[in-house]
């Protein structure tokens, strides 16, 4: 039996009704048969308590994982409000799910280990292809969690993930697991079996000005204290003058969206994009994710054009990986920074993707706070899994 994929969506204001409509449509597309896994994305307009039990029962208590998001990416375009349900049934693709609630009450490294072992134990001995997980995007310890995952899954095992997002208030995100939901948890799935995937990540930001050196960091490497022997905020004042003071007023606002920091790290000197989330009174800068001392740092510039160009580059890489094979399903995990930057061009990106990979291929994606990616060319070695901001991950199952 070939793989069957159904995607349903509704923007009905009532959570339960929206879930009913979405799951009904998804089921219709897979001819109402058995379901191997359900993936659920919902915007912050809905609370999981209103619909999750219903959804779990509707999919016959099969594996269900999901996440809150700022907006969904669907074949017909971007949806700022709604519930999306993807149902998948396949004889040759194998899934298993794991979860880890309440990360802030746990040793985060051990939490990663536990979630990985839960998934692996349930998965059994079949060939594993990659791990995909959703984590509270506001948790500052994601790199440590990833280390825990890799400790169990293997250093070379490809791990992809995304930070759940909310309605841009950065207050509360949800991770869905079966009929439970968490606000600071992680849910993951191991995917394998007789399937292949192509994947690429790009960001499209360009460095500006001279390179500078990060002298010192603290708080799990999220806070940059000094750059070029000066308080880190001097970098912002240098480029943005008085406007730099307003970063705290507009989280992910004008400056943050358009000018993140680019930190040069291996591999191959590509830039890790770091969104600035806050500035502190001691002159330091708080980043969305970790940065290492002694790294080179730039202020980065992005535009709709460079964003779309990056998408086109990612699609180019995917087509090379596909080598002419027909895509069956497209996952897109895209940064909120790009969501803000692309504005009305968001749908152009969908058009670009459909043009490159096919009009009829199902797309199920979401916007996230952070994108976790393992470059493919390192899969056979020590593969660094990096937390990125401001990027797009396109994954294609074939």
């Amino acid at each position, binding site marked *: 039996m070939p793989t069957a994929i159904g995607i349903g969506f509704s923007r009905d204001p009532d959570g339960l009704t929206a879930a009913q409509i979405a799951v009904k449509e998804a089921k219709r597309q897979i001819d109402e048969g058995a379901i191997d896994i359900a993936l659920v994305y919902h915007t912050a307009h809905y609370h999981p308590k209103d619909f999750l039990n219903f959804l779990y029962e509707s999919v016959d208590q099969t594996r269900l994982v999901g996440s809150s998001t700022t907006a969904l990416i669907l074949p017909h375009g971007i949806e700022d409000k709604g519930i999306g349900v993807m149902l998948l049934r396949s004889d040759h693709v194998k899934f298993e799910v794991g979860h880890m609630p309440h990360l802030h009450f746990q040793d985060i490294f051990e939490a990663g280990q536990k979630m990985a072992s839960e998934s692996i134990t349930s998965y059994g001995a079949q060939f594993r292809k990659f791990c995909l997980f959703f984590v509270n995007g506001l948790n500052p310890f994601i790199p440590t969690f990833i280390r825990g995952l890799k400790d169990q899954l293997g250093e070379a095992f490809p791990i992809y993930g995304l930070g759940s997002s909310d309605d841009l208030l950065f207050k509360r995100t949800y991770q869905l697991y079966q009929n439970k939901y968490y606000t600071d948890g992680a849910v993951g799935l191991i995917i394998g079996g007789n399937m292949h995937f192509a994947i690429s990540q790009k960001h499209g930001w360009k460095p500006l000005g*001279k390179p500078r050196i990060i002298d010192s960091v603290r708080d799990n490497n999220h806070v940059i204290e000094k750059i070029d022997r000066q308080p880190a905020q001097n970098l912002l004042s240098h480029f943005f003058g008085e406007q730099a003071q307003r970063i705290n007023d507009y*989280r992910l606002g004008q400056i943050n969206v358009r000018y993140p920091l680019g930190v040069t790290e291996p591999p191959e000197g590509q830039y890790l994009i770091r969104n600035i989330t806050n500035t502190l009174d001691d002159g330091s800068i708080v980043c969305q994710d970790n940065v290492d001392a002694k790294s080179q740092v730039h202020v980065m510039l992005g535009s709709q054009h460079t964003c779309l160009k990056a998408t086109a580059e990612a699609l180019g890489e995917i087509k090379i990986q596909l080598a002419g094979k027909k895509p069956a399903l497209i996952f897109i995990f895209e940064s909120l920074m790009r969501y803000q930057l692309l504005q*009305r061009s968001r749908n152009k990106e969908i058009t670009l993707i459909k043009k490159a990979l096919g009009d009829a291929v199902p797309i199920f994606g979401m916007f996230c706070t952070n994108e976790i990616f393992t470059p493919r060319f390192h899969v056979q070695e020590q593969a660094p899994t990096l937390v990125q901001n401001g990027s797009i991950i396109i994954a294609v199952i074939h």
Partner: protein
Amino acid sequence: MTIFSSIENLSSDFTLLLELLLLVVAAIMMVIAIAYRQKAAIIKGALNKITKSFQDLDEQAKLIIKTDLELSRTQEELDKRFSGLNALQKISRLVSTTLIENEIFERLNQPLLTELGFEKYLIITWDKQGNPFCRLQWEFIDVIANQILRLIKNNSALLTVLQKNHILAYDETTRDQDRIIRIPDIKQFVMAPILTQDKVLGLILAAKNSKLGGITEADKEVVSILADQVGQAMRNARLFEEVFLSHQSLELKVDERTRQLSNALEDVQKISKMKSEFISAVSHELRTPLTSIKGYASILMAGKVGKIPPEVKDRLAKINKHSDNLVKMINELLDISRIESGRVSMRYTLQHIQPVIENIRDLLTPQIKEKELDFKVQIAENMPPVMMDPAQIERVFINLVSNAIKFTPHHGKITIEAEHDEQKITVKVSDSGIGIKSEDLERLFDEFYRADNLINQSVKGTGLGLSLAKKIIEAHGGKIWVTSRLDQGTHFYFTLPVEQQKDPKP
């Protein structure tokens, strides 16, 4: 000695050699030092250049950022305006095509609103007691919406500002002390009044969930236009409502008046019927003694009860004559009464008007000749026959032509004309007589009404002739009317309907 001398020589040579070597080293050192110095100067120069390049790079970056910020702001504003205007155009179509106030808000209650760049909306209007209430609530939960209603109700400063058509726009940068109204959990919003010419109908509150971007001029403009559109639609709906209510009230009044008139007509008809019955009864009762009076007068005049002196005979003749007048009057009254009550059944036959007119000419020729009147009859060709009771129509002609003879001086002119169209024949009886005052024309067909003129003062009449003529014509389904100018003559018209030819039944 020689050994010593050799050693000394050797020593001297070594010293020399050493000195020479030192000199060479020193020279080399000097050369190296010079070269190093030169190289250091070059490196220093290069470093300076690199530093300068980095500084230039930073300056260029600053310039790029400044330009990019400006461009992106402009672009965002343009984007907002473009998408806002696009959505406003759709909204305008929606709200301007209804004249029902509630429907305006029902039509607005959809995701289209979010295309204006705001996620949450409240549209509030004031009820007749001056209390604000929500007409549209998009993405606001009830608790917050009610809280906002309370805040608005108790905020006179806000009302003053809205009255002046000022738009409030608050975002993260607005200081607390500058806010006229503080809305829980909402930092970024625009509030615009919905105005008529002289008062605030309500307000639109458009809010953003996120802290992104702030409120821009484009945001204010879009909400302001939306408020204008809603205001215009509300005004139209209210105007329509007013017109509709007024129309309804007018209809009610017309119905009431019609009912009153109908009742009055019924009353009049009842009274008229009673009058006819009364006249009929009285006339019958009068006619019997009148017949006796007239009979006894005839007996006396014939001398059947003895010879009577001429003076008595003369008086008896007058009794006889007045009795005849009275009988005539009573007969006419009886006819009117019968026609009104429908007790007279007309003997309709399909007949041409021409023979009736000829009869009249024959009948009245003596009187016409007596006054030497110019009497003419002009009948159009192909006059269709009409359904008529010829005896009754003859009475009409007698009335009209007798009147014409009566009010036309000697050598005057009387004309009877007849013409037709598809529906009717029209008969016109004209004279060149004294004419009728306009104030008399209206009541000319009333019973017992006699126009005020010298002839009427000298010649007795019942005042029932024209009334009877009118009843006869109306009983035929026709109309009768008169036009006249004083001293220029009078024209009486009447119509009789032409029987429409019907297809013979199969």
